[in-house]
């Protein structure tokens, strides 16, 4: 295996990861400099900015950025910082505007980023300040994909689909309509909250850490799923009960937990509390089957797109961003997705379920947060840091391209986490994109170890 995929903190061959990468400020600074300045990051969703002048302030790493649709309808992502003295030019979470005006000295920028107004320009700056050279700083790489907007600060980054690789078909199913039409989702709300935990613990959890299920046992006993009012227990309805679960690791560092429905692929009741909602989803299921055929047997569960974007594919459907604040603090965002053309009754039903499950008050999310924050806290001590975390679960059981493309396991495994930290190492080791993407002729997957 390439040396680029390991370093002083990551020993993915033996399955040990140093606790330092979850608590050490020096490692954290390296992540900001070498990883968040290069990787493709999820910024927001087009449904949040449908009209010219609409904006949504987002984050890339620690830095504030503005996702904006200009007067002509073009989508941009700008660093939220004035070119004069650096003050934020936008201090609202979202809205509509013609200009982004810096509150400090009033330099003002149009929605396409151009510096439009400088107070006393003629008397103080004429002939010296070139306004065309002082636009808001814009990301060099941006892509819109099925409503989602992604950006990278690295002009040399590979195109988004090369970056996504074979994880595409898994996240697609979170983004596509429930009846199999491509795209068509909208965000019906964003939860934002801060947790005293390292950002990677959340990202890692969504790679497909099925092993942590026992920590949600109390929620399962209560029952908070879509059919909870009908007496069904669990966090979600067991719509994947008959499916074959697969855990897939990808060279780029992504990892997913998906499922393959059995032949015949019959609908499993999942919304028993409301017959009309159930009928709607049954109709969507049958339509998806008709449209996609065999492809419809692949069902999404969870996944993480390296480094900090996660998704829930079905219940509760949405995207998560794990924004780093510090080695031991993360700002968590949950973007909740519905089909844009779903009936209002369906959207409202899902909205309530999403809130029961996720976000700062969501019962499942609270379990996870408790795990992540105590794991972070308990790893800060001098003695604790001498002992690495263990990632040896199901070593060497994954097979390349078994059932679906990628490094696939049909049993619970931490291979996705090992793959994630191999990718993490390549970024921190300053690897070029050929190495990060596995185009250097060296086999990187665990199967080769």
């Amino acid at each position, binding site marked *: 295996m390439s040396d680029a995929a390991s370093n002083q903190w990551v020993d993915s061959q033996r399955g040990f990861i140093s606790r330092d990468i979850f608590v050490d400020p020096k490692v954290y600074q390296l992540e900001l400099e070498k990883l968040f300045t290069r990787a493709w990051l999820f910024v927001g969703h087009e449904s949040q900015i449908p009209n010219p002048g609409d904006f949504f302030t987002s984050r890339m790493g620690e830095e504030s950025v503005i996702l904006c649709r200009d007067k002509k309808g073009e989508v941009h992502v700008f660093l939220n910082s004035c070119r004069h003295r650096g003050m934020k030019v936008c201090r609202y979470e979202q809205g509509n*505007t*013609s*200009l982004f*005006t810096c509150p400090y000295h*009033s330099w*003002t920028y149009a929605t396409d980023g151009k510096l*439009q*107004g400088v*107070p006393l320009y003629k008397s103080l700056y004429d002939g010296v300040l070139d306004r065309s050279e002082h636009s808001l700083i814009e990301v060099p790489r941006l892509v819109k994909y099925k409503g989602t907007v992604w950006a990278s600060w690295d002009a040399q980054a590979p195109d988004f689909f090369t970056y996504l690789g074979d994880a595409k078909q898994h996240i697609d199913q979170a983004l596509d309509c429930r009846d199999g039409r491509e795209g068509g989702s909208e965000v019906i709300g964003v939860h934002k909250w801060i947790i005293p935990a390292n950002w990677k613990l959340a990202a890692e959890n969504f790679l497909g850490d099925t092993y942590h299920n026992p920590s949600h046992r109390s929620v399962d006993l209560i029952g908070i799923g879509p059919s909870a009012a009908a007496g069904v227990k669990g966090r979600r309805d067991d719509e994947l009960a008959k499916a074959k679960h697969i855990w897939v690791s990808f060279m780029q560092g992504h990892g997913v937990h998906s499922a393959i429905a059995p032949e015949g692929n019959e609908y499993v009741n999942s919304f028993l509390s409301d017959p009309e909602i159930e009928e709607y989803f049954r109709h969507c299921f049958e339509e998806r089957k008709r449209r996609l055929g065999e492809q419809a047997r692949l069902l999404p569960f969870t996944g993480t797109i390296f480094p900090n974007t996660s998704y829930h594919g079905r219940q509760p459907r949405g995207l998560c961003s794990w924004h780093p604040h510090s080695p031991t603090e993360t700002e968590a965002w949950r973007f909740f997705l519905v089909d844009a053309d779903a009936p209002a009754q369906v959207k409202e039903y899902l909205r309530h379920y999403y809130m029961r499950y996720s976000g700062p008050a969501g019962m499942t999310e609270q379990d996870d947060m408790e795990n992540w924050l105590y794991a972070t806290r308990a790893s800060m001590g001098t003695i604790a840091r001498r002992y690495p975390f263990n990632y040896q679960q199901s070593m060497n059981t994954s097979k390349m391209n078994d059932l679906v493309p990628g490094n696939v396991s049909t049993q619970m495994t931490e291979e996705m986490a090992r793959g994630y930290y191999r990718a993490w190492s390549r970024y921190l080791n300053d690897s070029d994109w050929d190495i990060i993407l596995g185009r250097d002729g060296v086999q990187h997957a665990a199967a080769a170890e």
Partner: protein
Amino acid sequence: MVNIFDLKPGDTIRLKNGSLCEVVENMEDGMWVMVRYVSSPSDPSMEGEEELCHAEQVVETVSQ
């Protein structure tokens, strides 16, 4: 002092440099209005031009 939040398209304002301008659009950020120069004694070439005008430059509103 003029509170430029109160300016509406069509209003006429006088600037510190003596120019008379018609408000074309209030940007509603409390700082900037888009104006069309009606007269500009210090720079006649500005007449008819549109430009963002900062609140600090506005002296008064002028009745037409």
